[in-house]
């Protein structure tokens, strides 16, 4: 479904050159839930953003359903419509109502009629547990509610895979659960997911595979049981000691 081959992303900033992603290779099968963890600055976000073309990568290939992102001829907008992304800061459109947030791209990109798009939006709002907020503006919602709308917005495009970049990090602790519940439900329904998170409980419960990154490289890969109970690498052990 998704295949990354030796992906390298180099940032040339003022303070010199950063190899944010440094030769990452992995494969994600349909329906698989992969959790990416690692210390701050290890390149998790950058890798995730490469997968839907928000960052162009310097070297390597990312192949989604047979389409190579490194290929200049690839229509990146088509790829993005198939790859849903949920951000740490929600990034809802503040000038549009919740319903409009969910229907806009459906109409513009999927060319659905307003009616079809709204039905889909209502169904998704119900699914994430806030059907009554359709006509509100995002600023009137709690953080947890906003993030659930953001998930629904991505789902409205019927993506083949969902990417989550620390979806609960900006939330007050009491709202983390409601967002994780939605994500768990998605995983149960067989959605292909790549999740960057610091929620180790979530990783343990839902992940099929855990990828541990450090300094742009994949340091250790394994099932949650293996990774959390008996990691091989020193850096992974150190990291777990700090977060658990």
């Amino acid at each position, binding site marked *: 479904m998704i295949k990354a081959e030796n992906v390298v992303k180099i940032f040339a900033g003022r303070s010199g050159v950063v190899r944010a992603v440094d030769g990452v290779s992995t494969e994600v099968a349909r329906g698989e839930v992969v959790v990416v963890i690692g210390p701050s600055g290890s390149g998790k976000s950058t890798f995730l953003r490469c997968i839907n073309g928000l960052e162009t990568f310097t070297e390597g290939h990312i192949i989604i359903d047979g389409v190579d992102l490194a290929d200049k001829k690839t229509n990146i907008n088509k790829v993005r419509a198939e790859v849903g992304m949920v951000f740490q800061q929600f990034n*809802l459109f503040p*000038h549009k109502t919740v319903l409009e947030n969910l229907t806009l791209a459906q109409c513009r*990109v999927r060319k659905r009629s307003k009616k079809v798009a709204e039905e889909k939006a209502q169904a998704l709002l119900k699914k994430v547990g806030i059907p009554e907020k359709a006509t509100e503006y995002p600023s009137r919602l709690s953080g947890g509610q906003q993030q659930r709308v*953001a998930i629904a917005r991505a789902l409205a495009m019927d993506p083949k895979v969902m990417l989550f970049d620390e979806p609960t990090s900006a939330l007050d602790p009491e709202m983390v659960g409601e967002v994780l519940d939605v994500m768990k439900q998605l995983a149960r329904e067989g959605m292909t997911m790549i999740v960057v998170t610091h929620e180790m409980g979530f990783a343990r419960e839902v992940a099929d595979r855990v990828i541990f990154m450090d300094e742009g490289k994949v340091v250790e890969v394994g099932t949650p049981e293996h990774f959390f109970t008996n990691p091989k690498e020193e850096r992974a052990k150190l990291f777990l000691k700090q977060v658990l």
Partner: protein
Amino acid sequence: MKARDKTWPWKLLLVAILLGVAAGTWGAIKKIDYKWRWYRVPEYFFYLADDVQKIPFDGKVGSIVKDGATARVTLISETSEERVIKVESESLKVSEGEDLFEGDIVGFEKNLRLGPLMVGLWTTLWLSAISSVFALFLGLFTGIARVSKNITLRGLAMIYVECIRGTPLLVQIFIAYFFLGTVFNLSRNVCGIGALALFAGAYVAEIVRAGVQSIPKGQMEASRSLGMTAFQTMRDIILPQAFKKILPPLSGQFISLIKDSSLVSVIAITDLTKSGREIITSTFATFEVWLVVAAMYLLVTSVLSQLVYYMERRLAVSD
């Protein structure tokens, strides 16, 4: 009990200062012995014109019916065609049964006309309105070009903005009229509107650029991650949000444009300012006319400010 208003001494001071300024001005004017002619001013807004009424054919006067101050004259042509003309009774030049030739004067009719101040105001308004529309599109395009990834577009936009902002509007108007106008054979109105639009467009571009850049990067990323194109993202996500933010400076720019348009009077476009100058050459009511002209600009700009204020409040619903 109501809390006592503690600001009253300051309000009193404000009134005192205003009165002081007025009294000082009054005293100064007294000294130079200026003869005020306020009574001359209204006729420059509206006046009654005596319009000549002529017979449109060879023929004779049928009947004359006087109805108070106006007289209804029925004219009969040689082919028995009838035509009724209204004139002032006092100005009647013909009598019943009189033979007339085409073009003979029947009398005069009084009509209310717009005076030079109103005509000038109208010119100022449409000149500013048309320039604003062009400036808006030009500024929108240039502002987006300035944040574009394309170096050519960005360079062109930057050169345009820098050239316009680095030179005085008056000089730009001269160049538009005496240079471009001559080379491309353009009318003075086209030159005036063009110069104003180019001038305001550069400032609008900077406002648009700042507005677009003030929208968090996450908005662009969220929209693109849904598969929306760069154009759709600009139109549906970035610009609507930016517009709300830039409405105050943008409207300030357009209000400035109305004031700046007074400079086109130097290329002999008869706007409000030019009308004022023309009136003064015939009446010497210098003080009155300039004060009235200023008041007219002030009226227009404050009405617009109120309108913008109202719009801002309407747009604030999603906050």
